[in-house]
């Protein structure tokens, strides 16, 4: 696969075929994972385990979604509208909840980790960017200040670049370890 990626003009048909197989295998693996999830919850219901009410909700939601979709077809507008009416408000409400949870988490970080370089720079940066994002500060008539503000706005790129390179190096190392079987030995 690695060779196929690097010599792409010559190996494109082979690469396409292998990637198609990978899509099929990962899809079937996902189906197996979902089947196992549903089977586990059916087992919880049968055994009457604590919290089995949630399992009933999950299994009913799963069967109703699957059954209706199978019956009406995946592209049926009424079915899609129904799915959207259930999933979109739930996801939006969760996203809205994130704002409130993040606020409490930001306060908690100072309580848990104390005052350190990291927490202070985090707090200051959050305040500054919150203020800048509000859009109240406009320096159209002052090119010097607008240059300073734009430089401040580019500061997170430095950290993000460092983090990205670090993550990429880590992922690359891990992939090479897996490829050479060293990760399995360590386990």
């Amino acid at each position: 696969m690695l060779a196929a990626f690097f010599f792409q003009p010559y190996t494109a048909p082979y690469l396409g075929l292998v990637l198609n197989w990978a899509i099929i295998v990962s899809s079937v693996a996902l189906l197996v994972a979902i089947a196992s999830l549903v089977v586990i919850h059916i087992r919880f219901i049968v055994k009457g385990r604590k919290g089995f009410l949630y399992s009933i909700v999950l299994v009913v939601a799963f069967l109703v979604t699957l059954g209706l979709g199978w019956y009406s077809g995946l592209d049926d507008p009424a079915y899609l509208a129904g799915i959207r009416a259930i999933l979109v408000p739930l996801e939006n409400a969760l996203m809205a909840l994130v704002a409130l949870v993040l606020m409490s988490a930001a306060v908690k970080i100072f309580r848990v980790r104390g005052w350190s370089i990291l927490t202070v720079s985090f707090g200051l940066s959050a305040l500054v960017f919150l203020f800048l994002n509000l859009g109240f500060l406009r320096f159209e008539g002052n090119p010097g200040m607008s240059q300073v503000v734009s430089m401040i706005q580019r500061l997170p790129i430095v950290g993000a670049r460092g983090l990205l390179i670090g993550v990429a190096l880590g992922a690359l190392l891990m992939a090479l370890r897996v490829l050479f079987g060293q990760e399995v030995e360590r386990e």
Partner: protein
Amino acid sequence: MNNLDLLLLLAGLVLSLMVFSYLLGDTLLFGIAMYTLVGATAGFTVLVLVQKVIMPMVITPLTTFPKSSVWLELATLLAALLPIFMIFKKSSRVAGISLGFLGGVVTAALIVGVSRGTLVPQLLSIVDAFDPSRMTTAGLPNWSGIFEAFMMLAGVLAVLFAFHHRKTKQKQDSLAPSWLDGLTGFGQIFIGITFGAIFVGLFSTGLVALIAYVQYLVDFVRLW
């Protein structure tokens, strides 16, 4: 608006109110909303996978045998069938064949993706910052460009060092020279700034969603 639309709107409203019951603690209503989300998403995912992947890529080609290669289609079918053995035994060796294949493909894609998509562009952008054309304007030194380029290089090195130093310090528990601690602190400042900016981005998105939700509630009340 017909009755079905109204019913769906009401269902969405009730479910989202159930999500907000989390503010009162991890309640039964929040659990029901979450399990509904998981169940509905799982059902929809199964449907999409079967109708958009399995049917067109595995089943349909089998019906056009004379036109396609028999061995190729059988190999595809075999690749699709092997993971099913995991249902009966999680550590099935037969299922392991196709999962091993998948692991190989994912690893190769990861190596290529990370090196070509992340590592090289990020490193090149640091090098590009030192482009002489950016460091001068009309023959004179562009001090802000020079400052930014050096800041970028120093920041990236310090961030990388902050992680490395933290790890080795945890491992060895040794007293490091103070300049190393200083460099780590410099890296931590950039990490803090980046996390702060990411936090604000996420917070703003959440806030927009909250405002949209309140608007949704107001619209629903107006509808009555």
